[in-house]
């Protein structure tokens, strides 16, 4: 039974890890890192490391997500989809910001 749970968690974790790299939206990518953190803390519980699980849950799924989300707001990357981009940059013409923040599309 435990192994099944572990299998699901590991697969979920790796899928989210790939998602962090390929998701266009940075908000979604940060959310995916939090999913990785949660998966890790479940695995830590299974590996009999409650202390580490507690820390990973607090840090990996919580604190680090908050820090990254805060950074996204400061960086003006807080948008969910392409169309939202203009709203996040009230002062910048959309075409220019699209040219500058090229990530994987460049």
């Amino acid at each position, binding site marked *: 039974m435990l192994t099944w749970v572990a299998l699901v968690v590991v697969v979920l974790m790796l899928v989210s890890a790939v998602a962090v790299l390929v998701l266009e939206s940075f908000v979604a990518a940060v959310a995916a890192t939090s999913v990785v953190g949660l998966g890790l803390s479940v695995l830590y519980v299974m590996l009999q490391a*409650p*202390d580490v*699980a*507690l*820390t990973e849950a*607090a*840090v990996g799924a*919580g*604190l680090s997500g*908050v*820090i990254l989300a*805060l*950074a996204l*707001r*400061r960086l*003006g990357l*807080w948008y969910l989809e392409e169309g939202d981009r203009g709203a*996040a*940059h*009230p002062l910048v013409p959309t075409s220019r910001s699209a040219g500058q923040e090229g990530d994987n599309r460049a």
Partner: protein
Amino acid sequence: MRNLASLLFAGGLAFLLLALGAQLAFGDPAMRVGAEYLHVAGPELGAANLVTAILAGYRGFDTLGELSILFAAATAAGLVLGHRRADAPRDPPGGLILRAGADLLFPLLVVVGIYIVVHGHLTPGGGFQGGVVLAAAFFVAVLADPSRTLDHAAISWIEGLAGAGFILIGIWALVEDGHFLAPLLGTGTMGQLVSAGTLPLLSVAIGLKVGAELAGLMAHLSDTEARDQ
């Protein structure tokens, strides 16, 4: 070209490590030092939670280094971000639900954080975990209403004194016992709140230090001028 090389590199690394893993006997560790810890740590330090016993006892020096790393990170972040301008715009406050929730959550998180810190030698948890929860408590309050800021002077006093406290306990042991960070005050009865000698004191210092550093880091970050009103 670069992408191909990188793909090859990462693939090669993964393959190498997976191939090596086939030779590692997972699930059956060598337990050379580990087994000794399991035998000795309980009686020697009087802490039920062996992880805390090692963290603040046997490897307390590592923990000191690690507190210093957090401190260095917070200091460097402060150096990089500098002072905020007085007229800089702030984030708008969160909605009613968020603010009410934060007001409710704040005392709860503080109590939980303190509980985790002071019970570190008995149950899972300890200075790090409790410190993180404490930092989160203060940060939730700021996040809900950014006009309430954390007092940087107070944070710098707490982090300074908590770190100094850890080292001074260590130096006290150096004077008293001849060894830096040696356990003092006896072991007490295992399982009681007041037991395990100086371990809980060190835990409290760790908790305050970690909490103050992380809260300071986030306060610096949230204090920089908001642009997207």
